[in-house]
C-alpha cells in the first residue's frame, strides 16, 4: 500500500509537472506567435492545462468554470473578433523597447523566483471537510453566505458590462480626425 501510494504520488506529481510545463509553454506560444489566430489557439491550450491543474488541486467546480467561461465563452469571443478584424500578422520593430521590456520582465521573474524560495508562510488551516472541498456545493454555501454582497456586486458588474457593450456596439462613430498639435 505504501508503495502504491508512493507510486501514485509520483504519478500525481509527474502529471502536475507535465501539465504545468505545458501551461508555461502554451503561454509562451501565446506571446511569441505572430498571427493572432495561433495565439488564441495557444491560449485555449493554456486554459485547458490550467483547468487540469485545478482538477489536480481538488477544485472541480473552478475547473469546470474555467473550461466553460474561459476556454469556452471568452475565447469564442476572441475568435469572433479575430475573424471580424482579420488576423493580420504584426511586424515587430522597436528593438530598444523590446530589450527594455525583456530586461525588466526577466528581472521581475528573478525577483518572483527569489521571493518564491523564501520559504513557507504560516499555514492557515481551514475547516472544510476534505470530501466537500472544491465541490460546487461547498463553494455555493460559501458564496451565498459569506460573500453574498460581493456576489451581488459582481452580478451588477456583469449587467453594467452588458449594457456598456450594447451602447458601444449600437452607436456608430464617425471616424476621428487626427488632432494636429
Amino acid at each position, binding site marked *: 500500500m505504501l508503495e502504491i501510494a508512493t507510486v501514485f504520488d509520483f504519478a500525481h*506529481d509527474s502529471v*502536475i509537472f507535465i501539465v504545468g*510545463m505545458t*501551461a*508555461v509553454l502554451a*503561454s*509562451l506560444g*501565446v*506571446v511569441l506567435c505572430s498571427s*493572432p489566430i495561433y*495565439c*488564441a489557439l495557444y*491560449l485555449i491550450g493554456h*486554459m485547458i492545462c490550467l483547468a487540469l*491543474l485545478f482538477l489536480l*488541486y*481538488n477544485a472541480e*467546480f*473552478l475547473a469546470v*468554470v474555467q473550461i466553460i*467561461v*474561459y476556454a469556452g465563452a*471568452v475565447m469564442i*469571443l*476572441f475568435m469572433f*473578433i*479575430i475573424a*471580424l478584424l482579420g488576423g*493580420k500578422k504584426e511586424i*515587430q520593430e*522597436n528593438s530598444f523597447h523590446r530589450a527594455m*521590456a*525583456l530586461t525588466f*520582465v526577466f528581472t*521581475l*521573474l528573478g525577483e*518572483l*523566483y527569489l521571493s518564491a524560495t523564501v520559504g*513557507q508562510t504560516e499555514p*492557515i*488551516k481551514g475547516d*472544510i471537510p476534505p470530501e466537500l472541498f*472544491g465541490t460546487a456545493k461547498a*463553494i455555493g454555501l*460559501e*458564496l451565498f453566505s459569506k*460573500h453574498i454582497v*460581493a456576489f451581488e456586486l459582481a452580478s451588477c*458588474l*456583469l449587467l453594467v458590462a452588458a449594457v*456598456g*457593450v450594447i451602447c*458601444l*456596439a449600437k452607436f*456608430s*462613430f*464617425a*471616424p*476621428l480626425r487626427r*488632432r494636429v498639435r
Partner: protein
Amino acid sequence: MGQEFVLLISASVFCVGTAGFIIRKNPLIMFMSVELMLNSVNFLLVTYSSFLNSLDGQIFALFIMTVAAAEVVVGLAIILTIFRTRQDMDVDHIDVLKG
C-alpha cells in the same frame, strides 16, 4: 508537487503575460496576455486554497473570472469600436492622450 513548483509556474506565466503585454502591438494579443496574467494569479489562488484547506482562494478566483469576463467583453467591444473608427490595429498609433 510542493509550493515552490506552483509558485514558479505561476510566476513564469505571469512574466510571460507581462512581456507579451509590453512587447506585442496587436490589441487582441495584448488582451490575451492580460488573460494570461490573470490566469496565473487564479492558479496560485486555487492551489493555495487547496494547500491551506480554505475555500476563500477559490471564491476569489471565481470573482476574478467574473471580472475578467466582463472586462474582456467590454474591452473587445472597445477594440472593435476603435478599429471601426480608425481602421488600424496598432496600439502605438493610438496616442491621443499624448502630452
